[in-house]
């Protein structure tokens, strides 16, 4: 993370980064750094790197939980419609605010509410007489996603070119707008939901055994699915709200960790969080250095870099042939 903070449009020596961060963390003292460097490191880069780590962890954990929740290896926040719900919320605010300037908070809140609405809608549509069938849940997610997507597309058609650019950039995802002020909320949500979800690790393993078998093992499958769905849409909603629609992390990272260490969720979830965090910090670093001084949206790079590596891993894994 320190390396990621030091590299960018302006490179800051690693030692200097340490000094600046240490000075802020310990609360003054020591030699005052160059104010410009201090500004770059502490106000722009550091919150951005921390946010990238939180967003990466959040998306990856949520993907891992959703895959177990619906017993489907293709599941991720996009497939279940959360991301499209967030997009609609964000686009609604961006295009409605013609002329007026609406703060970043407005877009974030709308995106969060959109994701949550999608989560609740998918859950309500996915159950029948109190039973939550995994397949119905996935198909409901896909259908809800399409509805949100078409509404979003309609709004985009009516948007001005400036708005459209904002929408475009938001949907592809970025952590460039990171500020210290938004980090407490985001980190609180990401850390607490990840810890709680990890506590459900044993029950997530049981879900892999099939619904009837899980019931016979003393797990209330329907209630478990409801709790997990709420937690994961809360988690996804929060990170998408601040970082936009970053795809592929939620799908790829859990599979990657699973291939490396197996599917026991008590191990899988913490490792997935860690790997997701590192991955997005690296991708964000590349996004602002590949094309200096311009930035690429994260959503473009996550898939462009991740997919080939992921495909290579899939071809190497012999276990998949047996399954």
């Amino acid at each position: 993370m320190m390396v990621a903070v030091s590299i960018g449009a302006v490179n800051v020596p690693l030692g200097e980064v340490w000094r600046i961060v240490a000075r802020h963390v310990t609360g003054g003292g020591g030699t005052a750094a160059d104010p410009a460097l201090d500004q770059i490191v502490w106000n722009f880069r550091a919150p951005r790197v921390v946010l990238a780590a939180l967003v990466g962890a959040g998306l990856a954990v949520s993907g891992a939980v959703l895959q177990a929740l619906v017993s489907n290896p293709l599941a991720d926040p996009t497939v279940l419609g959360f991301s499209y719900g967030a997009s609609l919320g964000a686009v609604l605010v961006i295009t409605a605010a013609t002329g007026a300037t609406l703060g970043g908070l407005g877009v974030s809140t709308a995106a969060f509410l959109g994701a949550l609405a999608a989560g609740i809608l998918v859950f309500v549509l996915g159950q029948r007489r109190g039973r939550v069938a995994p397949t119905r849940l996935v198909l409901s997610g896909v259908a809800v996603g399409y509805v949100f997507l078409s509404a979003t597309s309609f709004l985009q058609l009516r948007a001005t070119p400036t708005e459209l650019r904002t929408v475009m950039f938001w949907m592809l995802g970025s952590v460039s707008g990171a500020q210290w002020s938004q980090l407490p909320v985001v980190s609180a949500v990401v850390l607490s939901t990840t810890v709680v979800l990890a506590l459900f690790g044993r029950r997530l393993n049981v879900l892999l055994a099939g619904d009837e078998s899980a019931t016979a093992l003393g797990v209330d499958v329907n209630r478990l699915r409801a709790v997990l769905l709420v937690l994961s849409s809360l988690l996804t909603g929060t990170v998408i709200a601040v970082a936009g629609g970053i795809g592929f992390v939620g799908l790829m990272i859990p599979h990657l960790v699973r291939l490396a260490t197996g599917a026991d969720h008590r191990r899988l979830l913490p490792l997935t969080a860690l790997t997701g965090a590192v991955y997005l910090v690296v991708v964000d670093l590349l996004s602002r250095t590949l094309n200096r001084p311009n930035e690429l949206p994260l959503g473009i790079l996550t898939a462009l870099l991740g997919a080939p590596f992921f495909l290579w891993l899939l071809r190497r894994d012999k276990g998949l042939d047996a399954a």
Partner: protein
Amino acid sequence: MRLTVEQLHITLDRRPILRDVHLDVGKGDIVGLVGPNGSGKSTLLRTVYRSLRPALGVVRVGGDDVWALSARTAARRTAAVLQDANGSTSGLSVTEIVALGRTPHHGLLGRDGAEDRRAVADAIDRCGARPLADRDFASLSGGERQRVLLARALAQGPELLVLDELTNHLDIRARFELLDLIRSSGTTTLAVLHDLDLAARLCDQVAVLHDGEVVGAGPVLDVLTPAVLREVFGVTAAAERHADGVVRITYAARPLAPDRP
């Protein structure tokens, strides 16, 4: 532990599936549940492992109504090996699968302790699955999988075993091995079996389900009479005790009973 089913009625999608079912499985007994496809066998099992709540009637395990117990308490008494168990279990090792059996012994914050590890190791050994312990469950053959799932059920430390077609699709040796395991476990068992000959060999008693009703229950020779075999299963056959003491089903040269196509 004794299992009793009293006056059980189940209706699904307005279709009566079970009607006034009574069943009694004594402590230590192995009872086979037989009947044609769609006669309600799996539905009856679901009421025992607390997946289906009856509108009318009671299922008691160890004297308690299973719905008066918590899901976890009920699962510490009753373990099941079911047909859905080959879901998306890829990525879990055999040991991890067997360890799932310890789930009802823990709350949200519970971690595996020495007792859990001992129960898991013991179940793996009893089922002869030690050489498989580190394999990925998804890479096992059908017989190996059933053996591991039985180990999972035994790791649960149950006093009642519920088995749904444990030996389906298995070769003949694997079938007999599994039957020996169940017998040697000494656990009270209710087993749905399609193969009548296997049921006659494994079970002390059988209960016959036909269109959601129990049409006979008791010792194999008393229940599987030529009349029942003809009317319920639609075949001409007889159950006989052979000289070696084993009850076998003998089917007629043209076993299809005339009233069925």
